[in-house]
């Protein structure tokens, strides 16, 4: 089947976002040989790092989601099916625990977390890095201490405290000197996080904070508490300050997302998966409705890589999985798969006049690939276009990742479904 044994694998996953990375993990776990190819890291390196499954759910998240999916059969959650929903979350918690970046959930089982943002708004994802979960505001009555660093441009805790106060949460702001060398004008979150890895530098922050702890029930830091040693770093703070310490998502780049990406990549490499990040797939090689391989860009030429199954997790409009131009054309560049858009002529329907419009912009809600319950991209008549290409994540149409609060859950659920279908097919074929 494969053209050369050297470059052939069972599965090629295209994309290193949440969808692509978790698809590769699942595929590896079933024993398949996997190659992951991505132009760059996915959105997790700029996102808050939590997992939004259905942010608006007030009670049991999965129950609400099932109800919603039943009413909206074309929604990606409905297509992925609900067994997979719980399964993908459990698998995600298991793998993140195994690689040392554990994700946790609300103590109130099945409920969304309540996490403060830098601005003092409350976001409600279902899962988050354990370092954020300790900041869950569910049922919290005591005072929260919010910590930032003098002369650091990315967190202004007084503003967060004044916004939290409006929502009935008492918070107090404190500024201490940043660990390490004097303030640089462009200190990035990732650089600060590296400094927190060093116990001596960290100690200076802790010592400065001691007198400020007072009645605080919890202590919130921007999400820069350690990069490689983050579990130890946060535990150290918590132990010495004798209060639960937690992290608050920062502006990009995302330290929690960087921790997750680095460790997933290392895990995949240890499992003998091939991981090529920094290489665009420029073209799919298709014969008789089957994809046999992909051409991958290298300096001035392309290299073909072959496989039996392909998972396309190229991330939609943001990461280049779908391209757009001034005339309003939308296209999928690797296989030229049919793309559903917001309709209308040109770009007239893409954006609402008000940036922060409640429902978000049509271009993000509608642009994407239509798939069936097997995650196969469909043509205008609803028939699969290719037999062995499965799409997952942000690339799919039918939800708005900016407003619906479900994009990460969809990435996990559809990636799992795509792998399950692809590998079940593979098993059948070999008989």
């Amino acid at each position: 089947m494969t053209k050369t044994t050297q470059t052939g694998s069972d599965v090629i996953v295209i994309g290193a976002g949440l969808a692509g990375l978790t698809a590769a993990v699942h595929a590896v776990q079933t024993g398949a040989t996997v190659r992951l190819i991505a132009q760059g890291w996915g959105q997790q390196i700029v996102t808050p790092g939590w997992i939004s499954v259905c942010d608006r759910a007030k009670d049991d998240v999965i129950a609400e989601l099932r109800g919603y999916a039943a009413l909206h059969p074309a929604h990606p959650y409905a297509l992925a099916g609900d067994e997979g929903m719980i399964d993908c979350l459990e698998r995600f918690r298991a793998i993140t625990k195994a690689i040392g970046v554990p994700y946790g959930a609300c103590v109130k089982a099945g409920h969304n977390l309540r996490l403060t943002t830098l601005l003092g708004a409350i976001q409600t994802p279902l899962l988050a890095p354990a370092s954020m979960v300790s900041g869950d505001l569910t049922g919290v009555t005591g005072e929260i201490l919010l910590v930032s660093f003098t002369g650091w441009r990315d967190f202004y805790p007084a503003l967060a405290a004044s916004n939290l106060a409006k929502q009935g949460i008492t918070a107090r702001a404190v500024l201490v000197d940043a660990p390490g060398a004097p303030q640089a004008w462009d200190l990035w979150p990732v650089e600060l996080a590296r400094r927190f890895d060093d116990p001596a530098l960290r100690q200076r922050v802790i010592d400065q904070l001691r007198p400020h702890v007072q009645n605080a029930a919890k202590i919130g830091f921007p999400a820069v508490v350690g990069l490689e040693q983050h579990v130890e770093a946060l535990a150290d703070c918590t132990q010495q300050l004798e209060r639960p310490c937690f992290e608050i998502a920062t502006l990009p780049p995302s330290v929690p997302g960087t921790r997750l990406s680095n460790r997933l990549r290392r895990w995949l490499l240890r499992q003998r998966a091939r991981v090529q990040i920094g290489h665009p797939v420029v073209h799919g090689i298709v014969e008789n409705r089957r994809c046999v391989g992909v051409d991958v860009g290298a300096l001035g030429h392309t290299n073909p890589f072959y496989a039996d199954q392909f998972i396309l997790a190229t991330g939609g409009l943001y990461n280049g999985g779908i391209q757009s131009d001034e005339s309003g054309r939308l296209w999928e560049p690797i296989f030229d798969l049919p793309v559903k858009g917001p309709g209308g002529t040109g770009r007239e329907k893409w954006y609402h006049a008000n940036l922060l419009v409640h429902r978000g912009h049509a271009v993000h809600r509608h642009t994407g690939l239509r798939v069936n319950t097997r995650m196969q991209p469909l043509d205008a008549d609803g028939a699969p276009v290719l037999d062995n290409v499965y799409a997952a994540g942000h690339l799919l149409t039918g939800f708005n990742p900016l407003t619906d609060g479900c994009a990460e859950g969809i990435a996990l659920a559809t990636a799992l479904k795509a792998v399950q279908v692809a590998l079940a097919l593979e098993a059948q074929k070999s008989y």
Partner: protein
Amino acid sequence: MTPQTVDVLVIGGGATGAAALYDLARRGVRALLVEQNDFTTGTSGRYHGLLHSGGRYAVRDPETAQECIAENTILRRITPFAIEDTGGLFVATLDDPADFPAQWVTGCAAAGIPTEQLTPEQARAQEPALTPNITAVYRVPDASVDSFDLIHGFIAAARTYGCKTLIYHRVTQLIHEGDTIVGARLEDTRTGATRIIHAACILNAAGPWVSVIAGLAGIAVEVKFDRGAMIAMNMRWVNTIVNRLRPAADGDILVPVGAVCVLGTTSVMTDHPDDYRIEPWEVSKILNEAEAVVPGIRYGRALRAWAGVRPLYESPAAHHNDTAGRAVMRTFSVLDHAALHGVRGLVTVVGGKLTTCRLMAEQTVDVVCQQIGVTAPCTTAREVLPGATTRYHRLDQRLHRLEHGETPGELICECEMVTRPQIEQAIAAYGDQPVALDDLRRDLRIGMGPCQGGFCSYRAAAILQEVKGHSALETNRAFAAFVRERYQGVRPLLWGHQLRQFYLDELIYRRTLGLDWLTGDYDPHENVYAEGDHD
């Protein structure tokens, strides 16, 4: 409040009003300038950025061409801090009428505009991005002019002579005594408070709104409104101003300004002085025309689009019936309402170019001085503006200062390299006056680079709160107002790269920060899926 008395009240904080204030100041007149928003928020902040050599008007409008070259020379001398001497090229391509360059050269010679013919190879050696399809190319003394710096320069210079300004105050009424205008009622546009200013004469430099002001005196001034759109591309595709060598049409000019290249413009007749719409065809047209001169540019990253309105006036005497848009001359008119309408105490200036603002000011102030009995002559062309800072904005200079530790403090706006102390200083300069983030943008250029505020608007909003002690809700709303304003200029350009950039910005606002929950505009517990505000 007791009425205040000045010699002359200038209405309008654009280039013309600012130049007029400076002119009055030098003639020893006590003048006050009033502007309804901030300085440069009218046409002068929504224009193309070209200090015309006059070449564009050499064939059709020789009078404007002469005015432009004369004033171009003067402004280079008196306001060097606002001008980057890029030089200009007029380029004819295979698609342009072959007989035009000869007419144009004759027109330039007649108007006194120096031209130098280059070979296409020479032109492409200077500007490698130019099309190979050049049939004729000439060098002219165009330049790029920063209207923010120009206007702030005139204002600062006028202040050194004791003249005053009042921003965020709108003239809502003119006060008559018989046939004479003796003052105006102003409304503070932020608090609603009113005050009265008495003046011996009022100089109406309200740009496209001149007829509104004249209307307050019961005088009809017929102005036509001609809207034009511009697009900033995210790098300097050319370092020289490039004009199309053909009869003036849409999308003829590329102007390098700071770190960007501004393409434009269009000409659309409209009924309103504040119609800033940009229609999709205008975006396509501008990109297509630029593509013909600089191949590949339409696939570059378009950062921001804006539109401005040209007030076109033709005196009733010289009326040809249905002239519109580019066919109306770009020269200006000074309307002495005492002579024309028997109303003393009001003089209007309308039309013209930013390039000719000093001349417009001179001729208008001449009439004003005649009415108030001042005989001092205009001296504004003589010397470099006093008190003007050398604020000419160059990104590489800002980077140099940062890297050499000359501007301490954290970098708040990465795209335009603005630090926290600079923001604090700019806020302090407003004293106890209210400050909007958009004011800081005009002062420092925060939020004007490639990311259009994605990262710096949160930081700047928080700093503003710290300094001013605003409430949380006020701060959230100021933040939201700023990002909405930034969005307006990006919305026509959301495809490809800029769409991706704005996806990230929107995610930061909505998800990382949760701004949309905190502006009080809607209930955070409402169902996101609810119908209602549709797509």
